[in-house]
């Protein structure tokens, strides 16, 4: 069978051309408006309550639309944006260090390895400054200086200090700001909140997204919900790898169901793997915890020179250690970008020199820094991180080096959207990590929070009006054939999962799928490996549907049933990720193809053949997807080769 077929190219038809500085302004002026009296006749469904979904639902409520908001957690405040640590970028130039909207735009396009859309990134940079104003007005307690001004710090991929932060809990504080704005709208009756509800299907009628099928996770009841437009803000799909820094519940179901209904899925193979996470400690491991990138400022990364050297680290003499990042990248040393550091760590572990019980770890050693600066300085800089490390591993990083290993952290791919953030299904909008639009093949640190809030507070509320101005659309009832079919599909699927009654748990399948993806579609991908992965995924998917065991029934809270549905969708996504990775024979950002490297082992892009967005059309679970290309033009930021030697 062919892996995929070629379809018509696609174009972003909503982005104005002409000078990039005024595109957003011109698009906003060109978009139709909805007058305030008519807004209350229009209903918008928002799925997900993270930074993108929470801020969008709150803002649409403020504007006067009727909003229905859904999340699988018990409260909208728990969406996984809450775990973001580092900060949020904004081109305020408060430091007078040469920052500007143009520079943030430039850094983001370059950081994305020239695989993102210039118009969108430029808008993101423009809107970034408003986000900080908005968050401060809401009471987000950003770090401040003694004079009362906002503090900023440096982050990877930039030479200016433009990252605003609230300790190591910036995501939490920004999300609580959005959550509180959302709760205000709920209190005012403008947003109806459905927590512990999971979207299981998209309803498309006459070519428009008109609603969703949801399951009440407490009662088990399946209901159909209607609207004039649907917004997906359901996050990324890193949990396809089973082990990631994502929350356990993060899943692809909302976007995958929309993909099956016709929304194109763009660049699914672009995955960000973060180099500094606490390694797996055993088969029981259920998730991975990030240790901030900032640790690499003072920590030195090393492994023993000899494979199989299992002496305790402090007994290995200096001349028997390999400080491999310093050796391979003398000018950037331990501070090479995320993708480079991750691959180098994998390389030394693959050669048998990894440390710890599993051999999948490298040392991050602070002994030199403590000797040079003193223990108290290191404690001031990293005390909370050292404490978190000790809590999880039981080891004291002041005494023995930390052990770290790369882990899946973020997914740049997602549903394809145009400049208005509308998918290829009219009326279906996709925001935040769930869409593909702004980060290209690699996201810079502190840019995920920026994008989620830009989409939710400022971009979507403007662009969705252009679509809604044609509404309200014809009311729907449960007996409409498309509605009934969507609902029956959901019921049948749940019944099938419950009826298997096999001999393996959902988690056992998820772990196995994750291992296949990690081995072959992780930090390094190759033609042979990806083909092997495709065969293994297909075979495992068949077994899943025959041998999975989901206890209980669908009548009430059944966490195994929730997981089973999500894993079933991860199987289908995993295949598409491998096909996408296989077709893209270049290396770009988070996608490293073994066959495409420079003579000294660095990622080699192929701009002549791959300067496009790969947007995939679903044609059936066992049928080859169709590739639609959106060509990328770089009028303002010209592609160059990255080098860190």
């Amino acid at each position: 069978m062919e892996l995929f077929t070629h379809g018509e190219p696609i174009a972003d038809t909503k982005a104005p051309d002409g000078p990039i500085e005024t595109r957003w302004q011109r698009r906003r002026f060109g978009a139709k408006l909805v007058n305030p009296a008519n807004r209350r006749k229009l209903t918008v469904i928002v799925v997900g309550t993270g930074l993108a979904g929470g801020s969008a639902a709150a803002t649409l409520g403020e504007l006067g639309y009727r909003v229905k908001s859904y999340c699988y957690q018990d409260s909208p405040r728990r969406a996984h944006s809450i775990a973001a640590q580092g900060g949020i970028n904004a081109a305020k130039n408060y430091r007078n260090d040469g920052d500007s909207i143009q520079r943030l735009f430039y850094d983001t396009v370059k950081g994305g390895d020239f695989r993102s859309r210039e118009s969108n990134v430029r808008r993101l940079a423009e809107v970034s400054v408003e986000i900080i104003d908005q968050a401060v007005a809401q009471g987000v307690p950003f770090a401040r200086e003694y004079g009362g001004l906002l503090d900023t710090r440096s982050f990877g991929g930039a030479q200016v200090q433009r990252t605003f932060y609230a300790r190591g809990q910036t995501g939490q504080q920004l999300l609580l700001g959005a959550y509180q704005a959302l709760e205000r709208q709920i209190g005012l009756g403008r947003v109806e909140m459905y927590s512990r509800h999971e979207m299981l299907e998209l309803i498309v009628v006459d070519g428009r997204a008109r609603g969703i099928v949801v399951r009440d996770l407490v009662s088990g009841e399946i209901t159909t919900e209607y609207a004039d437009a649907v917004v997906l803000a359901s996050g990324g799909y890193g949990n396809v790898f089973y082990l990631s820094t994502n929350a356990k519940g993060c899943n692809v179901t909302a976007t995958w169901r929309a993909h099956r209904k016709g929304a194109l899925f763009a660049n699914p193979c672009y995955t960000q793997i973060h180099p500094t996470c606490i390694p797996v400690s055993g088969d029981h491991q259920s998730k991975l915890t990030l240790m901030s990138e900032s640790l690499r400022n003072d920590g030195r990364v090393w492994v023993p020179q000899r494979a199989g050297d299992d002496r305790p680290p402090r007994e290995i003499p200096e001349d028997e250690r390999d400080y491999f990042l310093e050796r391979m990248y003398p000018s950037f040393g331990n501070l090479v970008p995320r993708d480079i550091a991750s691959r180098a760590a994998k390389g030394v572990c693959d050669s048998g020199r990894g440390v710890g019980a599993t051999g999948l770890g490298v040392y991050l050693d602070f002994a030199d820094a403590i000797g040079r600066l003193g223990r108290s300085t290191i404690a001031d800089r990293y005390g909370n991180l050292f404490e978190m490390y000790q809590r999880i591993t039981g080891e004291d990083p002041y005494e023995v080096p930390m052990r770290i290993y790369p882990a899946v952290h973020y997914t740049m791919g997602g549903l394809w959207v145009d400049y208005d953030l509308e998918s290829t299904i009219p009326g279906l909008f996709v925001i935040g990590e769930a869409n593909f639009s702004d980060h290209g093949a690699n996201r810079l640190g502190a840019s995920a929070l920026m994008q989620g809030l830009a989409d939710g507070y400022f971009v979507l509320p403007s662009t969705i009006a252009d679509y809604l101005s044609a509404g309200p659309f014809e009311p729907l009832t449960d007996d409409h054939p498309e509605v009934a079919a969507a609902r029956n599909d959901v019921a049948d699927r749940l019944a099938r999962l419950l009826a298997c009654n096999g001999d393996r748990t959902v988690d056992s399948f998820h772990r196995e799928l994750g291992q296949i993806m990690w081995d072959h579609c992780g930090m390094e991908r190759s033609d042979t490996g990806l083909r092997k992965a495709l065969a293994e995924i297909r075979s495992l998917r068949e077994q899943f549907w025959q041998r999975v065991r989901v206890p209980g029934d669908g009548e009430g809270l059944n966490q195994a049933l929730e997981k089973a549905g999500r894993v079933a969708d991860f199987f289908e996504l995993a295949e598409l990720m491998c096909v996408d990775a296989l077709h893209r024979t270049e290396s770009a950002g988070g996608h490293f193809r073994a066959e495409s490297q420079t003579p000294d082992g660095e990622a080699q892009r192929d701009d002549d053949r791959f300067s496009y967005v790969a947007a995939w059309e679903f044609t059936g679970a066992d049928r080859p997807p169709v590739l639609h290309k959106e060509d990328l033009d770089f009028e303002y930021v010209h592609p160059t080769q990255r080098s860190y030697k």
Partner: protein
Amino acid sequence: MNLTLRIWRQSGPDDPGRMVSYPVPDVSPDMSFLEMLDVLNERLTLDGEEPVAFDHDCREGICGACGMVINGVAHGPERATTACQLHMRHFSDGQTIDIEPWRARAFPVVKDLVVDRTAFDQIIAAGGYITAPAGSAPEAHAQLVRKSDADAAFESAACIGCGACVAACPNGSAMLFTAAKVTHLSLLPQGQPERSTRVVGMVDAHDAAGFGGCTNIGECTAVCPKGIPLTSIGRLNRDYLKATRDRDGAPGT
């Protein structure tokens, strides 16, 4: 390690519920508490029994979803640690561990260890915000905030809304949760215009949800995984008295 778990099993709100014992062999000291429950649930599933339902999500101590009373203590024996960050090395071989849900009138049990905490959202909806619709914000540096105020606001804003304070309180009071939000917002200049309506609205919603009153016992702050101090309740009381005096001419009514 070999452990015996005694876990509260309750199929739904109408089931009276009971403690059920489960032996769990081969527990690794490196497992988190929730990973140990995962292992039990895998085995129960294969044995044809219902796995134990419990809330969890981020498993790094920030989302606030997990929460269970472990040997009589909310979130278990380690201070300033959520259940998901608690590791089995803090227990000993052969130990029996009791695991129960949060118990409070305002947090009805949904199933096993899962409780309904929507009352917390209702308290926030009744005033736990600063009104600032998107688009209306002034330039961020238009108003300076003293660093000490910003830092103190942050300490209170670090509340994760897990509900341990309620579970630990003999009165089932959510005053620490409510006070953390009141403190966060009332320390900031942006929070001043709504300072009075906020505290009154939130306390009214707190009482209406069925939480008990605060009698300054302090169990809440002892179990709080984020170390929210008891003094924040003092701040709430001051704000509440002032707000009600301004409104009614007599404080506290």
